């Protein structure tokens, strides 16, 4: 009973929003970071995207993507990244707030 009322009061999905994420992404070299960052930037709830290349390989590039916004939906971010043929290697930083 207590747990039910607690979870209702503090429903994580409704009260806490992701405002900043740092994601480590491996992407094909054909996809340039301008297009990639613009696509992420056009997602609702994201206000700012910073992408920096950290490693360059023959066919791939590792990039550090920093997304900032009022309400970042990670599922959509993930879908956009995957849509560009890139994969998320790790999530290195997350900031959430109410």
């Amino acid at each position: 009973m207590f747990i039910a009322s607690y979870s209702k009061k503090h429903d994580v999905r409704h009260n806490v929003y992701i405002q900043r994420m740092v994601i480590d992404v491996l992407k094909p070299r054909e996809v340039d970071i301008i297009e990639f960052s613009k696509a992420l930037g056009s997602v609702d709830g994201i206000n700012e995207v910073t992408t920096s290349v950290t490693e360059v390989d023959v066919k791939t590039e590792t990039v550090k993507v920093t997304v900032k916004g009022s309400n970042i939906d990670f599922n959509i971010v993930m879908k956009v990244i995957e849509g560009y043929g890139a994969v998320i290697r790790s999530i290195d930083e997350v900031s959430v707030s109410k």
Partner: protein
Amino acid sequence: MEEIKSKDEIPTPGFLDRIRLYVKISEVSEVARRYFVMNAFDGAMTMLGVVIGSFSVGIKDPRLILSVSISASLAMGVSGFVGAFITERAERVKRVKELERAMLTNLNGSIIYKASLFATFLSAVVDGGSPALVSLVSSIPFILAIFGLIDMLSSYIGSIVIVLTILMLLGVYLGKISRENSLKYGVIMLISGIIVSLFSSIIGKI
């Protein structure tokens, strides 16, 4: 604050933006350009052979030449389309598979996969379309002759002039791409056309 969004809210670029992105990612423009010039050259040469061969054996019926050139353009179109489609597909699939191996992921449905599909189709259309288009354009004088707008000799001359002009323009285009002397390329193409004309007329006389 907004609620969690459904997956339909993934932003998708408009049609033209998508095409531009596919072209950029697949780097198809260089391949398509090469296919275009190579096959337009093929089409022009074939037409030159057909026209001069017909002239030297003295064919007087424009319908005959038109049907030969339409069949030739159809054959070149189909062969170009199928040939380029299969070759290009194999190359592109290989590239995607190599990338998949490098990234340890499945790229099906990603922009890389879609761009390679697009590049395959575009190459095939260019490869099939360019010779077909060139041979159809160069047979326009015979269509005019069928309708009695020009006589047979003028249609032969008109067709040869069109073909040689196309060859020259292809050369100029190549010159522009390489940023070298356009005229030099144009003249080389023109000379190759004239050589074909000479050979065709000699063979026709035998």
